[in-house]
């Protein structure tokens, strides 16, 4: 087999492997709770359909180009073999050139039409994305801080306002308005399973309308580089049925659980007398710091430290003693509490559900 043919076989093998690889990736990529191709909301499904529309058109164009490229190479095997570095220059006969010009003109016309179709598809998807409105929809004010999310459930009655962090609950099937604003640098609110991302830029408050159609826990992440811990600025969106959502909301509105056991009372005293009270707020106690997240109902959150650790006693202890080890650069300081102070504090925090 001549060297030239072996090279063509290598080419064909490579392209074949490439296409199979493509199929494998496309198929295996559709699961997961932080996945563009696993839509849980109406907008994400619009975008996902648009994705598959673009995907198959671009893949077919790519295969067409490869076929022409490879056949342009392989056609030479039928022509007499030209020794490498030969001085001979092929004449260009005019009718073959004209045929090629017509063919390329058609190819350009085809690609122009395809691009126009893709553009219209994007235009219609864009319109449907922005048409999601509702008169008295639930409004959540999400503020981006350096490396955690603050969510405030607005309400006409001021006392019904709920402040929580890093975990947003939504009623299924209803559009929700999210008002976005940044407290310091640019962040980007992105829950792939529900909608595209929207940047939080200081000086430019914006809104984002999302709707979850399927109940479930969706994960989101900050998508705009915002400093040391941009990697650990994650959030959870829990879409649940209406009555579960109302249950959650009423529990969030209530004051913090009053400590009963002797250890919990000691824990509350530790919380109010050491550094915690300077930054955190617990509704129903004297602690009202706005620097850190609101801990009124911290026990029933699924994750802590903006998705860095699960909400378990061991992780919480490690986080309180030395947050810099888990999230180097985070603004929460290290504490040197004695062991009984720590255990009491953990009991108290775990009672806040």
């Amino acid at each position, binding site marked *: 087999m001549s060297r*030239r043919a072996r*090279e063509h076989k290598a080419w064909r093998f490579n*392209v074949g492997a490439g296409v199979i690889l493509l199929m494998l990736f496309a198929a*295996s*990529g559709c699961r*997961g709770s932080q996945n*563009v191709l696993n839509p849980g909301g109406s907008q994400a499904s*619009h*975008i996902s359909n*648009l*994705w598959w529309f*673009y995907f198959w058109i*671009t893949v077919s164009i790519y295969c067409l*180009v490869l076929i*022409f490229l490879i056949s*342009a*190479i392989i056609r030479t095997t039928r022509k007499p073999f030209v020794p*490498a*570095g*030969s*001085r001979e*220059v*092929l004449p*260009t006969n005019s009718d073959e*050139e004209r045929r*090629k010009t017509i063919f*390329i003109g058609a190819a*350009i016309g085809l*690609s*122009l039409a395809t*691009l126009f179709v*893709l*553009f219209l598809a*994007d235009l219609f*998807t*864009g319109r449907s*994305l922005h048409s999601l409105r509702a008169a008295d929809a639930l409004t959540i004010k999400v503020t981006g801080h*350096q490396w955690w999310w603050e969510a405030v459930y607005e309400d006409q009655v001021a006392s019904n306002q709920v402040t929580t962090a890093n975990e947003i609950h939504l009623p299924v099937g209803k559009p929700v308005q999210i008002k976005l604003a940044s407290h*310091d640098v*640019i962040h*980007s609110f992105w829950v792939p399973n529900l*909608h*595209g991302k*929207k*940047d939080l*830029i*200081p*000086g*430019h408050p*914006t809104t984002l309308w999302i709707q979850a159609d399927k109940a479930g826990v969706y*994960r989101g*992440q*900050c*998508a*705009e*580089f915002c400093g*040391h811990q*941009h*990697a650990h600025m*994650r959030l959870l969106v829990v879409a649940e049925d209406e009555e579960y959502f109302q249950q959650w909301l009423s529990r969030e509105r209530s004051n913090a659980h009053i400590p009963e056991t002797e250890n919990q009372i000691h824990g509350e005293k530790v919380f109010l007398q050491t550094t915690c009270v300077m930054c955190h707020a617990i509704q129903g106690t004297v602690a009202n710091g706005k620097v850190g997240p609101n801990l009124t109902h911290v026990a029933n959150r699924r994750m802590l430290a903006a998705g860095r650790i699960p909400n378990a006693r061991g992780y919480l202890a490690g986080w309180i003693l030395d947050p810099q080890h888990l999230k180097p650069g985070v603004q929460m300081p290290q504490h040197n509490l004695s062991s009984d102070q720590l255990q009491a504090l953990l009991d108290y925090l775990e009672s806040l559900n």
Partner: protein
Amino acid sequence: MSALVLEQKELNEPLERVALERVWKRPPGFIGWITTTHHKDIAIRYIVTAFIFFALAGILAFFMRLQLSFPENNILGPDRYNQFFTVHGMTMMFLFAVPVMEALGLYFVPLMIGTRNVAFPRMNAFGYYTYLAGGILLYVGLFLNIGPDTGWFSYVPLSGPQFSPGKRVDFWAQMITLTEIAALVGAVEIIVTVFKMRAPGMSLNRLPIFVWAQLITAFMIIFAMPAIMLGSGMLAMDRLTHVSTHFFNPAEGGDALLYQHIFWFFGHPEVYIIFIPATGFVSTIIPVFARRKIFGYTALVLSLISIGFIGFGLWVHHMFATPVPELGQSFFTAASMMIAIPSGIQIFCWIATLWGGKPQMQLPLLFVLGFIALFVLGGLTGVILASVSLDLQVHDTFFVVAHFHYVLIGGAVFPLFAAIYYWFPKWTGRLLDKSLGLWHFWLFFIGFNLTFFPMHQLGLKGMPRRIYTYAYDSGWANLNLLATTGAAIMGISIVLFLINVWRSRHSGVNAGPNPWHSPTLEWATESPPPDYNFVYLPTVQSREPLWDEVSPPVVCGLSNRKRESLITTLMEAAPDHRYELPEDSIWPVILALVVGGGISWAIFDPWAVPISALLTFIVLCFWFWRGNEPASLTHHVQSSEDLQLLKSEANKI
């Protein structure tokens, strides 16, 4: 001036060669090395320095891949990782891609249009040394832990005075100022050289496409680089102690989006400034290895020009996720898709050229085929990114990382390797080794696909850009490990390439002046070309001068007592007047030291700006103060004793 005046004349070539040798030889030793203004010396230095930065940035990239290979890894902390990815991005964009493409232009444009040097040789030297100062400033910063850590585009307010304490982002701003001065200098060189110094007869429609690509890139640099110099200048003024302006301070009327608009107005033309020279390489290489003329010369040139214009009209597609009004966004979607048409025309013309010829599977053509395969994939993911709705999902994720690596490595580095394998014989007179080259191609091709193809998948699975680590439960671990192994393979292939270049420099197969039998003028002179490029400047009567049967007339009458070249008119390239090129001089190096030192010093003290401006003016006075040409000196060697002296030297060689 009169039309081409033809006459027959006796030419004493060996005498002319010896006289030119004496006039154009640079002073010996280090002094000669530092004061040279030959465009080939400066261009080779650019290319070698750019590849050193390419290797450094490659090592940084490998550390990043190691950190990302496992979840919650601790090879690099967040601070070091942020510095590494920022310096990796900046080195690749400002210290490798643009300079190396411009350097190939600075080397081959004078040769391809048949002249002796670029239009302003000393300014060219100044450009290189300023670029070198910028590179040194960045890497000194990185090693002293003052490397910029806010990303290659350093969005405000993170890079503003409040959220980036210390001098790290100032290093970013000043390094950009230096490298952009160098890019602007190179662009002015190429434009004026192509406009005024072409060989007689080389009208604009006979210009090689490589030269067209460099010309259009130079014009894009002229209109794009001021934006980044303004943006980095405004950010530096916001951050500097006694200045502290409020351009980007939302509380005092400034605007974070203003920075993004100004940066990306430069940002997108920048990536076309990297890509268009690459198309110039491909349009030069394909006809040579398909053994036929390029198909659709006019179509290729017009698509280059239209890419140059449309490139300025689509910067907002980097800002689709920001609160820019939707109507504006859809306009930029249309513009972003429209630019796919000229790229498509180029691809079709290249395939048509291959279709009609007898492609010979040499290494340059292999890299060009790799380029077409990868660039088309990158271009199509670009069309996906152009749509607003899809971009909302995949913006700032690893999907975008995959896209721009396919378009930059596939679209620019592959043609760059093809160009190196193609022009290496012209630089050194020796061919690069074929088997090592094949290993390099296939390892690079497979390693590249293994590294960056899984990133499309990672982007769709929600992995954002620039994260120093990720959680165990994120589901991204396997693909990241695969990408790291691919990066290792790419690293090996680059090492093989460097070995190949190092070995073949002296011990490669001996290649004559025109090993590939190419049509363009740079192959008309020996390899490596002498300092004066051509003994007699060539004239041109068609687009492929060396493939013509009859050899066209040459230009004679230029002085061989001082360095002189020929200025021709803009449209028809008819001879206009003789142009005396300046001697070698030390002042470019000193000016670059003053400008580099002044701009670096301005990071710490705003008074450095007026002081270094004054020093710059003083150095420029010395630079300007060249002696007059004594009228008595005849510009051509005729006197008899000179003749005897030159003859004795002639037969000594």
